[in-house]
């Protein structure tokens, strides 16, 4: 790819063999997002002009042929990331019943990426300042916010919004700033009122849009300690808007009163995840870690776009790293970020129906991986991805690859607590207790004694009082989630 001439196919996000319909569709989609009447971020008008230019060339068969002739022959190897695919089985088996197949997708930056500069940040801290935050929590949040502010580089932008039942912009998003004055404004935040997340999120979005730029890492960090009531759906809609503009959302919950399922759903809309901060003293560590992770972002959100196939469905998808979390099963799927020092690993569970196995080869998924890299000004061409398996009469005796086995063994624990949780929510306490006992057995056998104890303690609670202890379900959920990552790290050593 020459630096002077933009790659028109990449600009539109289509393959080189795209049909005229595909090109038209991609153009309309991009035009809707980038039209000067609508776009908000600096530089988007320029992008729009590029898109238009690309469409003018590619929609005309003659001009497209001429343009194609100027392209270097192999564009796929030019790609900036590499991806590897592992299957749990070498082939599908011709059966009269549904069967499972696991696919592990690993996406990592190519070597040369080390030389890219760290992209500037555009981060908004959305802080809960409801009455319950009073004391240690608020003090710790303020101290950390000031620490982060001091650690910023000149090109970074950090805005701060505090919310209770209404939102207040503490620090507006702006490049020219008086940091000393900002510190004072953070110090002035006083807790009062109830928690209404939508207000805070909306104000946060407004701030982040002021300095929104595709060459920055645009991210909202929501910090709360309470439940929001009635505005969950509005929040989720807002998260979808954020995702469309490449704004990531991370949810952090302090203590045990907040709704982890909601924060997970909110964050996963943008390919992010939620974090559980059990004690106020950990607030600093979590926020600083998150900032460091954002600063080392390579690609902020990898999107797996595909057309759903008949007779096969994605049953479950989970990001094992960099941040463990559920991936929402929808088209397209937002898989999450790739960090410079940590590739993206996603495990997908497919259910294949017997009707699928007519031919000798079955295609589970055909689509593309799309990503944008803030440090690169040119768009990245999509990466074609095709998952297929041969269909045979007999199952293979080959054991599943070790990386799938070890990932699944830990993911199984996480899913067991998930099942215990939903069984308890449905009032099936004996089922929930059984799941927790099973979970404890496996935790013990893996040497996780204290977590096993917690699981048994909660099983006992459920049995006797039909309820979890105040922090029990969150402790188990986020600890089993953390196990996923520790497994990855051990392997790396």
């Amino acid at each position: 790819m020459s630096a002077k001439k933009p790659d028109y196919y990449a600009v539109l996000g289509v393959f080189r063999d795209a049909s005229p319909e595909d090109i038209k569709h991609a153009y309309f989609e991009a035009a809707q997002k980038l039209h000067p009447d609508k776009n908000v971020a600096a530089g988007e008008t320029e992008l729009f002009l590029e898109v238009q230019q690309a469409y003018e060339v590619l929609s005309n068969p003659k001009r497209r042929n001429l343009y194609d002739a100027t392209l270097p022959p192999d564009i796929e190897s030019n790609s900036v990331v590499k991806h590897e695919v592992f299957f749990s089985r070498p082939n599908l088996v011709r059966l009269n019943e549904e069967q499972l197949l696991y696919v592990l997708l690993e996406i990592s930056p190519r070597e040369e990426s080390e030389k890219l500069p760290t992209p500037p940040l555009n981060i908004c801290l959305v802080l809960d300042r409801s009455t319950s935050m009073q004391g240690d929590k608020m003090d710790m949040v303020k101290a950390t916010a000031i620490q982060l502010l001091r650690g910023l580089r000149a090109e970074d932008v950090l805005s701060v919004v505090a919310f209770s039942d209404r939102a207040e912009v503490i620090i507006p998003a702006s490049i020219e700033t008086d940091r000393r004055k900002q510190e004072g404004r953070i110090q002035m935040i006083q807790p009062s009122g109830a928690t209404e997340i939508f207000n805070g999120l909306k104000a946060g979005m407004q701030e982040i849009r002021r300095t929104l730029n595709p060459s920055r890492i645009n991210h909202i960090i929501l910090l709360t300690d309470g439940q929001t009531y009635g505005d969950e759906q509005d929040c989720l809609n807002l998260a979808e808007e954020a995702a469309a503009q490449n704004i990531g959302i991370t949810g952090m919950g302090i203590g045990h009163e907040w709704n982890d399922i909601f924060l997970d759903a909110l964050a996963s809309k943008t390919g992010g995840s939620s974090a559980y901060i059990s004690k106020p003293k950990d607030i600093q560590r979590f926020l600083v870690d998150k900032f460091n992770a954002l600063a080392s972002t390579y690609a902020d959100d990898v999107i797996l776009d595909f057309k759903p196939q008949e007779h096969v469905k994605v049953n479950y998808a989970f990001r094992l790293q960099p941040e463990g979390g559920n991936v929402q099963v929808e088209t397209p799927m937002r898989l999450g970020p790739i960090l410079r020092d940590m590739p993206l690993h996603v495990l997908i569970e497919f259910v294949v129906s017997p009707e699928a196995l007519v031919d000798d080869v079955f295609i589970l998924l055909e689509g593309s991986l799309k990503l944008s890299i803030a440090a690169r000004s040119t768009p990245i061409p999509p990466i074609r991805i095709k998952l297929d398996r041969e269909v045979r009469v007999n199952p293979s005796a080959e054991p599943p690859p070790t990386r799938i086995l070890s990932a699944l063994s830990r993911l199984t624990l996480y899913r067991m607590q998930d099942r215990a949780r939903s069984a308890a929510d449905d009032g099936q306490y004996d089922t929930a207790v059984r799941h927790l006992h099973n979970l404890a057995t496996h935790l013990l056998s893996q040497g996780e004694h204290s977590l096993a104890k917690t699981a048994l303690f909660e099983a006992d609670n459920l049995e006797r009082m039909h309820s979890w202890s105040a922090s029990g379900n969150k402790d188990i959920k986020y600890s089993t989630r953390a196990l996923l990552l520790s497994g990855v790290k051990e392997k790396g050593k």
Partner: protein
Amino acid sequence: MILCSNCKHANMAGAIFCAECGAQLIGKDTLTTQTIRTDHFNRASSSKPATDTYQSFDGSDAWGSLHLLDTGQVLPLSARNEFTLGRVSEGQPIMPDIDLSAYQAYAAGVSRLHAVIKREGGRMVFMDLGSANGTFINGKRLSPNVEQSLKHGDILALGKLKIQILVKNE
């Protein structure tokens, strides 16, 4: 479909871990199933007081033994000359001298009071007590309430529960 050997949950084909109990389904030695079963029976039997008594004898003064073929357990017969065989079931006042319920007696079709085994002089005698599924010696069905002598190595079947008779040589 893959049946979990641990909890009998029916998992979808291609599953690697049981969706119910989390046990690993494939990629490990399948023979372990057998080991777990024996292990289970050993533990179950040691928790039963009735068989405990017998195991506390070292077998030196036993006049014979029952060798349970399915599990490999040997129950020595000693300290008295007559034992009733059967299984204890909850809420029933029937107490056989040897309770076989730890050896899957119910599933094998052993009656609560199935049979009696006696020592008469140097002879070992066996009698079915009108059991529902009958007793077989070396494959031949016994008539109920008729005594039948046993010799070393005879295979008894109480319903489907197979026991080999071991007679101590005197």
